């Protein structure tokens, strides 16, 4: 594994090339995770699985297409600004960044947009059609995309996908047909263990070092549970049908979630696990303090 790493600690960002000219930029805490996430994972119904033998880490990612027109999907957060900007310079060199494609406007997904606009003054923001009051979210002047709309970059074309499972209302997913890369933002992500050397690894590399399907399923489940608290009122069968429909519409070869390790091989092996994880999450208890 070769990752180019910028910064350290709270500002650490690693860069890896998934396939030629498609890059994964990702922040995770590494050795700091055990301290920063101790309380966070303690709120899970089974915290011992995440803070005892297997201390886990939670990444925040962006994806960069280097093509005739370059496009960055999401920006990571302001706390990682210096390293994100260094990583962009590392991949792009003297080329300008043409598009920043925003999945949704939470700070860890879009928080470096102003800094990127300053560095690349001609960059075009891309966001989801169907909202209103875009200026409130710092998205004035953005190119608005609806599901099915395409953004040609050269050898790659990004298609906006109906974001099935969201927190923020103004959300979009993306699919790139040449590579088969599906970007699903907050859905379908695993966790990794820094002490096992899993930071910046692709999922197949984790599997080669002992990460199991059972762990993947459990990770997808608990991540969905705290990412989508509305699952408290959802029907698992409807969710399963939606997942099946998604993968019937798109021939996914690479699965890129914002907060997980990239699945670049054996996609068919993970489809049922993604579906099952979502269904199991909807069957978990959701304690409501009213």
């Amino acid at each position, binding site marked *: 594994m070769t990752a180019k790493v910028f910064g350290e600690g*709270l500002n650490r960002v690693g860069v890896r090339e998934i396939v030629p000219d498609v890059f994964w930029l990702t*922040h995770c805490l590494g050795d700091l995770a055990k301290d*920063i*996430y101790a*309380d*966070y994972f303690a*709120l899970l119904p089974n915290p011992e699985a995440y803070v005892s033998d297997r201390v886990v880490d*939670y990444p*925040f990612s962006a994806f960069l297409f280097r093509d005739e027109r370059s496009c960055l999907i999401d920006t990571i*957060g*302001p*706390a*990682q600004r210096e390293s994100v900007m260094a990583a962009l310079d590392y991949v792009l060199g003297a080329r300008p960044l043409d598009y920043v494609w925003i999945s949704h*406007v*939470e*700070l*860890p997904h879009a*928080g470096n947009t102003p800094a990127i606009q300053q560095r690349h003054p001609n960059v075009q923001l891309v966001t989801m059609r*169907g*909202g*209103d*009051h875009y*200026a*409130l*979210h*710092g998205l004035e002047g953005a190119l608005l995309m*609806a*599901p*099915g709309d395409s953004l040609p970059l050269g050898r790659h074309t990004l298609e906006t*996908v*109906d*974001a099935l*499972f*969201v*927190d*923020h*209302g*103004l*959300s979009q997913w993306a699919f790139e047909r040449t590579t088969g890369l599906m970007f699903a933002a907050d859905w379908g992500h695993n966790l990794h263990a820094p002490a096992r050397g899993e930071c910046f690894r692709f999922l197949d590399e984790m599997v080669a070092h002992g990460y199991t399907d059972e762990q993947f399923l459990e990770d997808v489940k608990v991540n969905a549970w*705290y*990412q*989508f*608290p*509305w*699952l*408290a*009122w*959802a*029907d698992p069968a*409807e*969710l399963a049908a*939606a997942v099946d429909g998604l993968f019937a*519409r798109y021939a996914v070869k690479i699965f890129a979630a914002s907060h997980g390790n990239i699945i670049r091989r054996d996609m068919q092996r993970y489809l049922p696990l993604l579906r099952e994880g979502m269904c199991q999450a909807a069957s978990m208890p959701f*304690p*409501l*303090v*009213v």
Partner: protein
Amino acid sequence: MHSHVAGDLYQLGACVPGENGHEAVRVYVLENAGQPVLIDCGSHLHRPEFMAGLEALLKGVPPAYVFLTHSELPHVGNLQRVAQRWPAVQVIVSNVMLPYIEIPPVLPLSQVTAVRPGTVLDVGGRKLVFLTALLRDQPGSQWIYDTLTRALFTGDAFGYYHAAGECEAFSDQLPQDISTARFLRYHQNAFRFLRWTQPARLNADLARLFHARPIDIICPTHGNALRTNISAHLHNVQSALSSARTALQSIGQPA
């Protein structure tokens, strides 16, 4: 500019026009016997008037706390300016939030405290209770209940768009209650996940909250305070949530 809601509770902020009507971005302030509490910090778009209104309301008393319902830009857009003006201010967030990356890095993390739902904070002689945010567009969200004014601060929930001319009107100053249709238009934009939710189950939990606590005022960020007919407004929101599922299931499919 600020408006008096009830007791020592005030409303600040402004709104923005749009295709759906005006969208308010409110900040609520409890004067709280010399230890003021802000609920959220408003939009960066309204910074000069918000800060001027806050200064005028506080009359030199520094705010003790900012409670963030969540950290989306319209709720933290002036946090940096507030922290610069009153550097000792403490920020309280949901324990599901990761402050180091989800809050703008504009004040020391030692001044940010994450609390669990159910936490009761006794400050200035009043009890403020942090609750599960039943409707939220960010996992790290919370609702807050003030036992003194019986106000429930609901973040993005219970919002509604308003017409030009209604920008400063509380619910009781409008010719009629906020309708189901108005709540629906807002909630289906804010909470796209409602296409998956079974409304009867969601509405039962909402009813449980309103049964558990006496609520006289609902304070949404994206609407003016609802000061009267609380049961009617709850009913209209529940009706909107029932309709949202069907309305949203037709949105988002590729052509």
